[in-house]
């Protein structure tokens, strides 16, 4: 009962933050509602930008991945992001802010349309970005339902949990717009950092110290490899470092770059971003790894037994049993289970609320999609001119409601595995869209046809990988199924961890192909260069890189 009360109190607080944000900020036009009037201060800008990137995937997914794969999770997902994400914010985000401030851009597609003088190609980019973003919103609704159900011990069923979380997120996005979303993200980040640190100390004490736990893992041949990276190839590890390129290409991150009050605010964000990554990811990964030594926690012991059964007789089991066993061995709830085992109930409840915070990170994505719809479709096709700025903001709000309802209905009916695959490859898709931003901002010779080629390639590649993932079931760990081989060389393979192309993740050929098409497309259509006057907005000195 106590956890349920704490989590519902937390939900009430974030809803109240959204209402306060509405009262404190003017929301007369699109810039006020969608960008908080470009007025976020340095602390809110840093913490909310970081909070926006800190999703259920990064907290629950990281510890679950570390539970199964060991310390490699940190190098795969955290340390490369800690360098690449702030670097892209510094190099591209600051330029986006400058262009947005001067020319009034609210979405990246507005800038693309202006930069390459392309209307319908901009719509095409909008469509691909939107399709890649929707699965995240659905996953967040599912995560909200699952977490609320787990925290309440089944008192709140999945459908009700999903509905409550959807209503709360919709509420503060609807009323507070970007200001409400940024304040809630800041609150959530502070909450998670504070109680996360306390939880690490409490769990350490409960396990008899982490030194003891690590020694226990080292002594067993089955768990010692979790403290190294020997189960993952260096090539696979390398290819993962392309994933953080996706961050700046996500519309909600690019749009967020428009919200800072001053360009100076980027400095603190760029420098402190890696430290925030360390503060959140190191404990998440570490707890995921040492959970393998927490055999005195019944729920974790059951997971370890399921994993051993999978390893020993997994190949002989029917598909349904295999899926059930995989689900039992899954580690996405491992932090919640550690808290149940070692933390007092009030702390476990507060941490449950923090986990809810991470799960609810869909707010920025809902707002971004709403912003994109009202700016890139409604306003672009004459809606704002015909009906006025006030109607445009109301349209954005209606879109927030519709989007939330649609996501909720889908979340109730569709199997989560479909969306897990979709989100997994949306990262690769957004990485492949990163060359669009770089070319728009830095390359005078880029053309709209290059941009179109990049966009179509990205959509086709994501679709192809998703089809392969769906059509070819994952083989047992350590085995790779060849899907396409040329001259005795396996070009496309399916492994337990996903699809690979020549041994690397699809994100590598997707991003490189995207960059190539941008260059080749531009060179082949050099007669379609942007006119001198629009180009001067972007390259006032006359020359690009």
């Amino acid at each position, binding site marked *: 009962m106590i956890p349920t009360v704490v989590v519902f109190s937390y939900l009430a607080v974030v809803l109240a933050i959204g209402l306060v944000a509405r009262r404190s900020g003017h929301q007369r036009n699109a810039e006020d509602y969608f960008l908080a009037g470009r007025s976020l201060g340095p602390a809110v800008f840093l913490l909310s930008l970081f909070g926006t990137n800190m999703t259920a995937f990064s907290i629950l997914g990281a510890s679950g991945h570390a539970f199964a794969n060991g*310390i*490699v999770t*940190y*190098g795969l997902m*955290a*340390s*490369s992001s*800690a*360098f*690449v994400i*702030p*670097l892209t914010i*510094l*190099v591209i985000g*600051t*330029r986006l*802010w*400058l*262009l*947005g*401030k*001067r*020319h009034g851009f609210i979405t990246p597609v507005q800038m693309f349309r202006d930069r390459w003088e392309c209307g319908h190609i901009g719509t095409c980019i909008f469509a691909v970005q939107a399709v890649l973003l929707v699965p995240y919103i659905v996953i967040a609704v599912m995560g909200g339902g699952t977490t609320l159900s787990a925290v309440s011990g089944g008192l709140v069923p999945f459908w009700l949990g999903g509905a409550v979380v959807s209503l709360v997120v919709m509420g503060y996005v609807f009323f507070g717009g970007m200001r409400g979303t940024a304040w809630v993200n800041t609150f959530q980040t502070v909450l998670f950092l504070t109680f996360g640190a306390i939880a690490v100390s409490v769990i350490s004490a409960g396990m008899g*110290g*982490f*030194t003891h736990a*690590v020694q226990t893992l*080292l002594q067993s041949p089955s768990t*010692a490899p979790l*403290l*190294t*990276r*020997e189960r993952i190839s*260096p090539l696979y*590890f*390398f290819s993962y*470092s392309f994933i953080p390129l996706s961050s700046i290409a996500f519309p909600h991150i690019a749009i967020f770059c428009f919200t800072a009050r*001053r*360009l*100076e605010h980027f*400095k603190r964000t*760029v*420098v*402190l*971003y*890696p*430290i925030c*990554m*360390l503060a959140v990811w*190191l404990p998440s*990964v*570490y707890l995921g790894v040492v959970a393998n030594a927490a055999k005195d926690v019944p729920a974790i012991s059951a997971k370890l037994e399921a994993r051993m059964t999978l390893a020993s007789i997994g190949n002989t089991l029917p598909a349904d049993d295999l899926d059930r066993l995989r689900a039992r061995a899954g580690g996405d709830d491992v932090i919640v289970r550690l808290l149940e085992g070692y933390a007092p109930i009030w702390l476990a409840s507060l941490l449950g609320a923090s986990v809810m915070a991470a799960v609810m990170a869909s707010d920025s994505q809902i707002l971004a999609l709403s912003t994109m719809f009202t700016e890139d479709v409604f306003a672009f096709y004459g809606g704002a001119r015909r009906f006025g700025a006030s109607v445009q903001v109301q349209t954005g709000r209606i879109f927030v409601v519709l989007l939330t309802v649609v996501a909720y209905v889908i979340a109730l009916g569709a199997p989560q595995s479909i969306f897990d695959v979709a989100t997994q490859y949306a990262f690769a898709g957004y990485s492949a869209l990163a060359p669009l931003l770089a070319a728009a901002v830095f390359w005078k010779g880029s053309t709209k046809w290059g941009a179109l080629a990049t966009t179509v390639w990205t959509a086709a590649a994501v679709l192809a990988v998703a089809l392969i993932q769906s059509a070819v079931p994952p083989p047992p760990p350590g085995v790779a199924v060849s899907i396409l081989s040329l001259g005795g060389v396996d070009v496309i393979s399916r492994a337990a961890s996903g699809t690979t192309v020549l041994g690397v993740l699809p994100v590598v050929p997707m991003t490189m192909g995207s960059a190539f098409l941008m260059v080749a497309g531009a060179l082949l259509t050099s007669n379609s260069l942007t006119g001198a006057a629009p180009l001067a*907005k*972007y390259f*006032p*000195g006359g*020359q690009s*890189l």
Partner: protein
Amino acid sequence: MSRAEHLVRRVPVGSIVVGGLVYLLHQDFWFWRSAQPLVFGLLPIGLFYHAAYTVASSLVLWALLRSLWPRVDEPGADAAGFADRPPAR
């Protein structure tokens, strides 16, 4: 000014080299199969390396701020209050 001269002047070559080096240091094959030594008795060396890499990233980004910061002649720089500053090189 020729295009080559322009590129040399405009592109912060040093920053690209430093950025590339930091990126390469992420691919630390040297601690691949070893958990030992355990730093502070609890952090496997591979994990400690990447935690230290994260802190180093923060320092490198701080050092790169000046050279990769938008130039004063870029659009909107006046709005950012940078008009009276010398070009970042």
